[in-house]
């Protein structure tokens, strides 16, 4: 029996936006996306899609991608489909705020239930906007699932369980869990594959299922934020860099060493 896999993927401001182009609108306390830099699927979520597709290849799987948000850019959100995922469901509703992870986790949990039978929920380790690393933990708690974070390798075992290698700072940890389970994926799993031309064509023909918060039965109390955003600002650094020069690069390297000795750093 193929596995039913749900991948949770978020649309985020491109985290590779150069720091010099990073802007905040102080009044609305929002990040203003840099002109000409479209949003992306959160990087770790692409790693999660990759993990799902590897399982699809090894044991067979049906892969549904779910995203909660608003202002979706369809070309962006279809990328997992063009990589090889089967279906896309969007919870498109600005009332689901994301600062505190709570409403998003409830919305995802409800959407996952609506998708139906599932064996495995895969998430990214964290979203590169709020860097919360919390939504998946919430989804696992709400759905009562075994929760494994920071996967660098996921194996479906013959007995119906999974074995996961969790990335630690110095090595890894091997854990077992039964299905259904939730696993968050880290970049150590490996680079996500590129969409193929065929994948892009197939994705173009698919249209996502779209729900609102009300379709999922989310009421005002669930949607009420648990954290207030009082301020959002760009930290200022007062460091001044002393540029070390020389006749050529080799000379500059020499002078750098002399400078560090003078400053008693080496």
């Amino acid at each position, binding site marked *: 029996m193929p596995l039913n896999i749900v991948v949770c993927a978020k649309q985020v401001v491109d985290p590779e936006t150069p720091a010099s182009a990073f802007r905040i609108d102080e009044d609305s306390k929002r990040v203003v996306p840099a002109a000409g830099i479209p949003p992306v699927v959160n990087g770790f979520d692409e790693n999660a899609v990759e993990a799902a597709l590897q399982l699809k290849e090894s044991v067979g799987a049906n892969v549904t991608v779910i995203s909660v948000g608003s202002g979706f850019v369809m070309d962006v959100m279809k990328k997992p489909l063009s990589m090889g995922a089967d279906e896309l469901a969007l919870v498109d509703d600005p009332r689901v705020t994301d600062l505190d992870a709570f409403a998003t986790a409830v919305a995802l949990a409800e959407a996952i239930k609506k998708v139906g039978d599932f064996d495995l929920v895969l998430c990214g380790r964290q979203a590169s906007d709020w860097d919360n690393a919390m939504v998946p933990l919430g989804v696992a708690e709400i759905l009562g699932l075994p929760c494994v974070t920071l996967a660098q390798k996921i194996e479906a075992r013959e007995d119906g369980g999974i074995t996961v290698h969790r990335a630690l*700072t110095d090595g890894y940890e091997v854990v077992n869990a039964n299905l259904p389970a939730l696993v968050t994926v880290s970049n150590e799993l490996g680079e996500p594959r590129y969409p193929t031309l065929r994948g892009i064509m197939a994705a173009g023909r698919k249209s996502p299922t779209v729900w609102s918060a009300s379709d999922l039965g989310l009421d005002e109390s669930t949607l009420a934020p648990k954290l207030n955003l009082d301020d959002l600002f760009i930290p200022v650094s007062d460091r001044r860099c002393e540029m070390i020069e020389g006749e050529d690069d080799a000379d500059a390297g020499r002078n750098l060493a002399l400078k560090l000795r003078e400053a008693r750093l080496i």
Partner: protein
Amino acid sequence: MPGILVFGELNQDALASVTGELIAVARSLAAETGDDVAVALQSSSIGDAAQEAISLGADAVYRVESPMLGEPQIDAHLAAFEQVCVHVQPHVVLVGRTPMGRDVGPRLAFRLGAAVAQDCLEVAIDPDTGRVSATRPVYGGNAMARVSFAGDGAQVVVVRPKTFEPLEADASRKGEVTDFPVDIDESAIKVRLVETVTEQSEGVRLEDAGIVVAGGRGLGGPDPFETLQELCQVLGGALGASRAACDAGWIDHSHQVGLTGKTITPDLYITVGISGASQHMAGCSASKNIVAINRDADANIFKSAAYGVVGDWNKALPSFIETVRELRDS
């Protein structure tokens, strides 16, 4: 009952440094709220850590001893800590953003229906509301967010380690130590730890090193990392890397510095071919002196660096290493 509860962690039998830091945060909050500060210590054997916690500022310690708490088994520690929370009913719970805490804190919050703030660098009480207000890096460190807890429910605050100083230990401080027996149901353990594989890197640990030398994508391949390793040996430093270099497979991920890698705090951090993306700086911005060799004068790394060379490392690095050697030998 104490109003502030710290999720304590142990290193073998001793208190982990992060727990001392959290107690200091708890004390600063308690100075505003008038609450007592309690610490839950969870392990298979707790030893003298309870007294240590008290000497560092705790008013009360819950000794949660169980054979199921000997391993870093997240489900077991979460189940135990949930029981302590349900008993104590604190309005502030402090958890370190450690390998254990970063899962336990948010999962606990979801179980209690409480709000949670992740990865906090500043934590205070808002004098108007009496609620916790915290500052945390977001967008990979490009921005900082100041958040406060809405409503009136429990507040779970996950604090970044090595951000706060523990208080001076005072062995004469008194506090109450209570044994807190827990009953952890086997069915609560949904994820089984099979084995831990440690990849030992030789020499100084990156997190403890006084000097760190790191390379990035600009090195172009694995071989230059051997040159950097030589420099590490000369300086007695540890080897770091950017995520781009690790993802490329040039060097193991255990060397990664940054938001999703290690946090380092050396006196001297020498970077070669690293652009200084905010997610990288998130792990090294507490370095006392950053040095950058990068051929792009506009690279972000120079904004944080104390000394920089704008140039090609192929030329600048060999002469740098040679001069360092000469200086060392003289």
